[in-house]
């Protein structure tokens, strides 16, 4: 190739890079998780013993009482996204230790191994009943799904990617709140992610937030509460302050059902409580209602 040819090819490469927007987009398929160790577990609601394999087959819904167990992010993606359509985005982030917390790095390393995730949140492109969208999922098995710098960055990138692609965003929230270990950086993710939602919303794009058990703290007080439409799984704990902290402050026991999905529906903060079995269909229907304008 002559010099001019080289230059053109270089420019082409550069252009392609700019177009792809994200520096990397490895095509990694989410896979079904291994069955966790131990054959049986206890349902926290009806307190009956359940066979884990049955429970997995039943989409982590208690066959006795309908309790919705927490779901791992990868399971959630497999459950909600059409087969072979999910493409994970924004990987390769590394969690740092800004406050030099003893043991924090080790903890993260351990969680990484156990959850097969690199942080408490993954997102990517996918289809739901053939409707394309950007899907983000928090994993409460990863350090309580707490939001540190990496989670905040990835949530922000979720909306940025969706803006670039002019796609709706669906985020499954599950979080104990802020990542204490990252101090003020964790707090500032609330502002950062909320601003990202604002930008996405300004483009006239749809954002559906799905609140699963539990959605509390800094996640609750930022992007989780900012969906155009906010859905919730039944009986999920949803609130800013944790129930134990409230009980300590007001020095009395909280009423049954306080801060649960159904309670918040009544209080006007949730659009609809949706059973997990119906979730995919409801999401697909809502996506259809928002594909292009009808005038």
């Amino acid at each position: 190739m002559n010099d001019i040819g080289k230059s053109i090819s270089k420019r082409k490469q550069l252009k392609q890079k700019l177009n792809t927007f994200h520096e990397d987009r490895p095509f990694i398929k989410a896979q079904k998780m291994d069955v966790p160790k131990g054959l049986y577990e206890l349902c926290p609601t009806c307190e009956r013993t359940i066979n884990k394999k049955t429970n997995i087959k039943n989409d982590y819904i208690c066959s006795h009482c309908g309790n919705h167990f927490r779901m791992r992010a990868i399971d959630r993606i497999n459950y909600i996204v059409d087969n072979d359509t999910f493409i994970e985005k924004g990987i390769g982030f590394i969690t740092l230790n800004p406050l030099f917390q003893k043991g924090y790095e080790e903890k993260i390393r351990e969680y990484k191994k156990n959850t097969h995730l690199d942080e408490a949140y993954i997102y990517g492109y996918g289809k739901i009943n053939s409707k394309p969208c950007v899907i983000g999922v928090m994993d409460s098995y990863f350090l309580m799904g707490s939001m540190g710098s990496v989670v905040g960055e990835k949530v922000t990138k979720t909306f940025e990617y969706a803006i670039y692609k002019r796609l709706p965003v669906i985020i499954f929230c599950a979080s104990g709140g802020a990542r204490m270990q990252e101090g003020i950086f964790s707090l500032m993710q609330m502002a950062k992610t909320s601003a990202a939602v604002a930008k996405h919303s300004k483009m006239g794009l749809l954002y559906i937030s799905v609140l699963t058990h539990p959605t509390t703290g800094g996640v609750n007080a930022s992007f989780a509460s900012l969906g155009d439409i906010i859905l919730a799984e039944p009986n999920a704990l949803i609130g800013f302050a944790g129930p134990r902290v409230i009980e300590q402050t007001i020095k009395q026991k909280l009423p049954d059902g306080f801060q649960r999905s159904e309670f918040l529906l009544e209080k006007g903060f949730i659009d609809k409580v949706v059973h997990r079995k119906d979730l995919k269909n409801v999401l697909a229907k809502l996506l259809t209602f928002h594909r292009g304008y009808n005038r």
Partner: protein
Amino acid sequence: MNILEKEKKLSALEKQIDGLGNKKSVEKLKIEIENFKLNEMTKLTAWDRVLLARHQSRPKAKEFIDYLSPDFIELHGDRLFRDDPSIIGGIGTIEGNVFTIIAQQKGSSTEDNIKRNFGMPHPEGYRKALRLMQQAEKFKRPILTLIDTPGAYPGIGAEERGQGQAIAMNLMEMSKLTVPIITVIIGEGGSGGALAIGFANKMLMLENSIFSILSPEGYASILWKDASKAAQAAEVMKLTAYDLKDFQIIDEIIKEPPGGAHFDKEKVFTETKKAIVETYNKLKRLSGIELYYQRNTKTRNYGFLQRFNYDNLGGIKNDIHKDFGNR
């Protein structure tokens, strides 16, 4: 000896003066006091600053407003449910510039503290703040917010009326504004309750104020299961103005006199006003869209993290993937 103990010692020393008849020994004691102030009461630990930020005599938001804007008119209510006395809002001029001023107000007495809920807002407080900020946007008026709160209120009503939603909404809507927003943390800057009115173009901090994701007590009790280790927690949490300036979370530190703001309120007010006016004079040169971008760019960069550059990784990529799980 923490700063409160030092303060006690100081006042004990000062009381000794009255007891002394000898002019020379008075003179000597005065010098000793001066030295004690300068040497002992300026070397502050993070925990000392926590104590000062919460000090009973520390000037409260209302005193700042009285000094900054003598013609301030307070406006009330969220137009939805209630007027929250823990947040003061209104309009007033600061050196001839009309500002919308929003501030968290701790009580000055026990009774007042109950009325103000110890500076902990309910959702209606955040919503009042938002209403006034959007009014400022309509009239292209700069916004000044003063932060002084232990945090959001963990109570039944606050949860029932959606404090999480209220805080989130403030953050989202503040990100859209095209007027200058200046925030000064004057005491405690506690968690989401503080941030809800603190999404600013420029964030200033009094030297002995604090800003953190939760209280040191909460931090110690959650991470170390021992609330009594609060002083230790304060040291690791990086919640002082100097730490936050290093992290580029805040933009400027407003100095306080030795011993804390309550030793010379007038001075602190003057310094604060100067800092606000200087900051405003810089910001007012920017257009609305520039202010919007400046605030959002700053926020976009918050975070402490690292990312692989895949293009440079070559064959290592696959190894990383293996490391990261069976994907």
